[in-house]
């Protein structure tokens, strides 16, 4: 009995497959549209998850507290003297000043991130050379020496020679010599970076003595971060206190479904499904009605005909899911999500090689299924009820 039932289901599956093959142009089109939508959604999901994961891993080592001075809602230079005001707060291990900002190269239209600090004062500075592909970090007394990221080296075309010049605000030139290059493995953090001494950065941006752009605060006990942050706010009103958990949290939500691009992906999916559902619900063709009436007269039950429609939907949506998600994974991992480049990098001239490796958990797959396969099944099974009620006697008579 069980054997017959199983054989019956396989027979019905055979019929569903041959039915899809008979209408192969239509079936293939639906499959392609469906797979494309899943590809889009899954790619978005994978890219954002891979970037979030990377950020989560890496930003665990960001400074515990970062201080910026705010004025009229905008960031401005912070006095070095504030460092002394922090001396009274228990739990602070050290405070490191930094001058950093952007340098816009008008010839190449590239935006470099320039970082000036005395690296020796930072944690793990002794091991920083391990993050370099070649050369070494400049020492505090070496003037005009920089370590650059991979894209910077390419952009400035300093293969062969290793000097370049930037403009100060008064349009005089400041010369730099490249003493090292960051390893390509660190591209996702350093590709647009130019690291120099605090003094060189101050000179480049003409920032007055006694001012810096921010202060990195390191605490003895990470569990005390919030308490110390609160004390700093009290001691220094008008200062924006950014804690490590806050910075990490940014990257958990920075790629949202409510972002412009996320909404486009979702809306496209919805539009595609409205069209598909409309097509399905807009009734049976005369050929389809005839086929169902014939099958009924030949002894097929209503449930058998429903089973055929159900299998057809499962086959199309299941295949579309597997194809779409596989294509999305290949797109993200082997092609660095190149279709999303315009949105990920926009007009950026400096482009890192993204080595994204998404982690596909069951929850992620289920989420994509919930937005795609389930609506499609609902949109096809419900009209199938109507189709299954075609009366058998309509096959009789001319």
């Amino acid at each position, binding site marked *: 009995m069980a054997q017959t039932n199983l054989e019956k289901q396989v027979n019905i599956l055979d019929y569903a497959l041959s039915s899809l093959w008979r209408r192969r142009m239509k079936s293939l089109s639906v499959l392609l549209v469906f797979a494309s939508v899943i590809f889009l959604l899954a790619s978005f999901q994978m890219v954002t998850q891979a970037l979030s994961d990377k950020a989560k891993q890496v930003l665990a080592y960001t400074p515990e507290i970062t201080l910026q001075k705010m004025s009229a809602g905008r960031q401005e230079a912070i006095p070095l003297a504030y460092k002394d005001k922090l001396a009274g707060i228990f739990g602070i291990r050290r405070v490191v000043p930094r001058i950093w900002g952007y340098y816009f190269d008008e010839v190449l239209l590239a935006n470099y991130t320039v970082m000036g600090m005395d690296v020796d004062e930072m944690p793990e500075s002794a091991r920083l050379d391990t993050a370099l592909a070649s050369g070494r970090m400049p020492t505090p007394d070496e003037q005009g020496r920089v370590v650059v990221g991979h894209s910077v080296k390419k952009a400035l075309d300093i293969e062969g020679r290793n000097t370049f010049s930037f403009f100060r605000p008064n349009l005089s030139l400041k010369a730099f010599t490249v003493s090292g290059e960051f390893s390509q493995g660190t591209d996702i953090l*350093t590709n647009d970076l130019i690291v120099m001494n605090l003094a060189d950065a101050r000179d480049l941006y003409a920032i007055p003595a006694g001012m810096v752009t921010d202060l990195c605060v390191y605490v003895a006990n990470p569990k005390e971060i919030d308490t110390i942050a609160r004390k700093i706010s009290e001691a220094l009103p008008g200062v924006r206190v950014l804690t490590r958990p806050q910075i990490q949290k940014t990257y958990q939500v920075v790629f949202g479904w409510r972002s412009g691009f996320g909404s486009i992906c979702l809306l496209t999916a919805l539009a595609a499904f409205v069209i598909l559902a409309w097509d399905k619900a807009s009734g049976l063709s005369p050929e389809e009605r005839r086929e169902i009436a014939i099958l009924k007269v030949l002894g097929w039950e209503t449930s058998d005909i429903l089973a055929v429609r159900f299998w057809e939907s499962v086959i199309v949506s299941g295949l579309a899911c597997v194809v779409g998600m596989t294509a999305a994974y290949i797109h993200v991992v082997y092609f660095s999500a190149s279709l999303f480049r315009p949105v990920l990098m926009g007009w950026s001239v400096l482009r890192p090689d993204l080595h994204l490796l998404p982690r596909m958990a069951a929850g992620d797959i289920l989420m994509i299924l919930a937005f795609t396969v389930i609506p499609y099944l609902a949109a096809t099974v419900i009209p199938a009820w109507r189709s299954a009620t075609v009366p058998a006697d309509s096959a009789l008579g001319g």
Partner: protein
Amino acid sequence: MRPALVFSLLLCLLLALDGALFVDGLSRRKAEDATLAQLEVATSALGLTDLAVATEARYTRHPAVSDPMAPFMDHPGAIEHFPTGAFWLPPQH
């Protein structure tokens, strides 16, 4: 060959491809772990706070530490004109 068998074979082929991708993913993850150490050192020693992906605007390059006025630097009701602004959201705090 019955259609159900052909379909099963096709499905097996796709799943075999997925299996191969999974295995390759495992080896890639191993390689990635090697560079993770370098990234950790770079973040720590340079006090980095953001991923360097979208370098066209400062609030997409440094979303975690940009001031809230940055996207409106041109004027208060400024409409987003950087493509990456559609993808890189500002922080919620």
